[in-house]
């Protein structure tokens, strides 16, 4: 790791101010992506601005079907929240399968979606839940927020403060983990609500997480795993690496989608 300067922000405003003053600053939340990258000398911010001690960015609130999760909430907190489980168990189960216990107790939902790793789990849920991403400057619909691989609509100094969504009637997440990293090789979040079915897919797409609209339409008229039988995602749009060919990933997307539907 290169030498860097650590700053602890007490509020969102202070964090933004510190970022303005830094030469090449980076926000750090759980550090589960940023710190390994710095250790490998692939990132060298001169300042780290720690968001973990900002009270406003923490916690889960559930009121009726309205859910708000502070950006600084850890995966373990999401996984363990009984309030959240009572309205949207799918997201709790998703969070409970991210990485390992160490990662889940450090990593945050804000860090995960800001990083937008094409194999990260949360983006699939954000798309399927039609979530709104709150920042210190604006509100962004999930679909506008995730721009591409490791790319979001965030500006350099913009801070995600929370995500919010209306809990669907039913939802489930099904993930096939990469054998080495245990990130998603294909993760499919299916949400069924008043305005239809939404299907978010992560781990597989060349441009990061995406909505599988054909599946949404098919499930909208027949909500059963069998409704997906005739469908397929285009292997040409899939990622390909050591662990999975594009064809294999296309297959996994369908299999995971069917399993998510079957689990609902």
């Amino acid at each position, binding site marked *: *790791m*290169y*030498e860097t300067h650590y700053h602890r922000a007490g509020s969102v405003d202070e964090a933004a101010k510190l970022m303005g003053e830094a030469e090449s600053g980076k926000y750090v939340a759980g550090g589960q992506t940023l710190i390994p990258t710095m250790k*490998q*000398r692939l990132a060298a911010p001169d300042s780290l601005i720690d968001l973990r001690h900002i009270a406003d960015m923490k916690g889960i609130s559930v009121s009726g079907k309205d859910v708000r999760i502070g950006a600084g909430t850890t995966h373990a907190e999401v996984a363990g929240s009984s309030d959240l489980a009572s309205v949207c168990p799918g997201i709790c189960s998703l969070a409970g399968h991210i990485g390992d216990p160490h990662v889940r107790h450090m990593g945050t939902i804000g860090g995960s979606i800001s990083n937008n790793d094409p194999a990260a789990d949360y983006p699939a849920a954000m798309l399927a839940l039609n979530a709104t991403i709150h920042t210190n400057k604006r509100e962004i619909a999930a679909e506008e927020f995730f721009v591409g691989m490791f790319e979001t609509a965030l500006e350099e100094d913009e801070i995600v403060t929370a995500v919010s969504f209306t809990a669907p009637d039913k939802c489930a997440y099904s993930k*096939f983990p990469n*054998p*080495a*990293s245990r*990130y998603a090789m294909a993760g499919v979040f299916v949400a069924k609500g008043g305005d239809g079915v939404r299907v978010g897919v992560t781990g597989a797409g060349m441009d990061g997480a995406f909505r599988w609209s054909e599946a949404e339409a098919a499930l909208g008229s027949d909500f059963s795993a069998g409704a997906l039988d005739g469908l397929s995602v285009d292997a040409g749009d899939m990622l390909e690496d*050591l*662990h*999975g*060919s594009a064809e*294999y990933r296309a*297959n*996994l997307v369908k*299999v995971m989608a069917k399993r998510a539907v079957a689990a609902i």
Partner: protein
Amino acid sequence: MGMEGIGARVARKEDKRFITGKGRYTDDMSVPGMKHAAFVRSPHAHAVIKGIDSSEAEKMPGVIGVLAGAEMTTDGIGSLICGWMIHSKDGSPMNMGDWRPLADKKVRYVGDAVAIVVADTKAQARDAAEAVKVDYDVLPAVTSAVDALKPGAPQIHDNAPGNQIYDWEIGDLDAVDKAIASAAHVTTLDLVNNRLVPNAMEPRAALGVYDEAEDHYTCWTTSQNPHVARLVMSAFYNVAPENKLRVIAPDVGGGFGSKIYIYPEEITCLWASKKTGVPVKWVADRTESFLTDAHGRDHVTTIQMAFDADNKITALKADTIANLGAYMSLFSSVVPTYLHAILYSGQYVIPAIHCNMRTAYTNTVPVDAYRGAGRPETTYALERVVETAARELGVSPAELRRKNFIREWPYQTPVILQYDSGDYEASLDAAMKAIDYDGFPARKAEAEARGKKRGIGMSCYIEACGIAPSQAIGSLGAGVGLWESAEIRVNAVGTVEILTGSHSHGQGHETTFAQLVSDRFGVPIDSVSVVHGDTDKVQMGMGTYGSRSGPVGMSAVVKALDKVEKKAKMIAAHLLEADESDIVIENGQVKVAGTDKALGWHEVALNAYTAHNLPAEMEPGLKETAFFDPANFSFPAGCHICEVEIDPDTGKTEIVKFVASDDFGNIINPMIVEGQVHGGLAQGIGQALLEGTSYDAETGQLLTATYMDYTMPRADDLPSYTVSNTVTPSPLNPLGIKGCGEAGAIGSPPALMNAITDAIGNNNLSMPATPQKVWAAINAA
């Protein structure tokens, strides 16, 4: 004898310090004035070094010195060597390319060390290492051994034309070809034995200390064999004469073979300590471990097995190309030859055997022994071809094996080895019973009803431990002898120290070696200490690898105990005024048999040291040394059977049951043996299901250089094992031990692959059988 003697399931003495984080590893060592090193490493797989500019690095904060290869050459530090000479079949010696500890003319793999930077802190050393400018002229690279041997491949060492190291053979080719030509059936398979990264939990490390006043060097390092390290560093690398070089291998966190070898870093730290005048410590980070620890396996094989009309094996032929990486590591040459090819008889009577072995240089990290060293490669090829033959012949895999088993011992194979003892059918029967082999069809049908593909596969392995005897291996090209030494020191109060050349880095020697003493003298293991790993404390010894600590290391202890026992009895006979032949040692008492005349063990010890009343002419003291050079290898064998269930939609394999029935001869501590088997199985299952090492074919970059891409086995990847033992003692050592350290990793991969290919009905599947590969094989079937 006793609660803590041979055969007792004693908890490991050393575990308290390991479990509580109190182990003392090389990185825990600190000496006054110590500074930290980082290596400048090649980012290219193959390049000419045109120049090195360290001027900027030298000016950076905390930097004490930047040293490169040219200076080391001037100082007369020698090149790294391979310690076993193999001759090609045309009689020519193997082509050993020059391996400089710090490359000065050319780099040959990504990670090749070019310079060392010494600085006040580790971070400063790393920052400065990055500022060293090396001017490279990048050359084309080759990473596969098959490609390296093709005409026109990049030439890696000038003295190895076409990158060939040797083209060696063993066995009777004519007889084999004739048997194949006249066979009723021939099964042929093309197989790849996947390359593995050893991944010891503790990364390699070295602390080199030069004492100018004494003109003496001390090296703390992560070694499985500190005496061999000292020998090689003084005799070949000219670091220092042996009497001026102390090598200490304190607690070592796993080796699996990768810490047998003497690497560039420890030599360089010692040399750099003298050059800079400060003690120099280097500890690898995980990326360096991936890039620079010697890898294992990497064979490409065509194997043929011929049968007569009665399904008796008539011949076996193996043709293999092995990848030895960019340089010949210390024992790299012997792994594919005398640790691999001569095992091709397996558990079977095979009248004619031939193995051809070509080895090649590639632009990858050196490849050397890794848990099993050569025998896993043999077992994989042999046990997959037997299983495949059974399928082709339409007979039960168990019965085909049974029909061809060796049933008389000693058994002379056509390829040098003579097996000591065994009962292969006993292991097979035990394993089949443990897994309820006969009930498999019903379980398969039940799984099918759930949409799962279920398969069963077995492997009947043999392996060879405690490579020996020294005279014979010398005639086969070994540069060292492979005996072991032990000294038993009985202290004046009766407590005992065992000084052994067998280094312990996870094997539990501190417990099992103490059990031998407890068994002999009836003293508690708590009063027995095992001293190892320090060339200043322990007499010359050969170290730990090849499952030799039991059959060879413990045998030396037994020989030394014999001498101590004899002297103790002489002293007791003198004091008790009895005949020496009437003295027995029982439960910590030295007694005249059949009487109540007795001395406590500690009283005999004290008498040996007070020397007030010893037999005439007897020297005081109670301390004896012995060296043991076995007459032959020992031959553990066994049967592993695995049952899997595969999800056809995703290709994911679940191991439903894994049984291992092993014959390790006599067992000193069953719990430790089970632990060794469990660990070995984890590594074998890792090889078969999870671990794949991948280099980019063009750039030679290691693509699987972190745990994000290299799949280390995790607890939830592994089943609960069912392990048991059958026992045929080895007649070749006093304890009847055969060795158990590697069998798990040797026997398991083919059992698993046989089970998976059985489940999916497609034999065209290579390790690691990842979900994607299994899914593709299902869909291609």
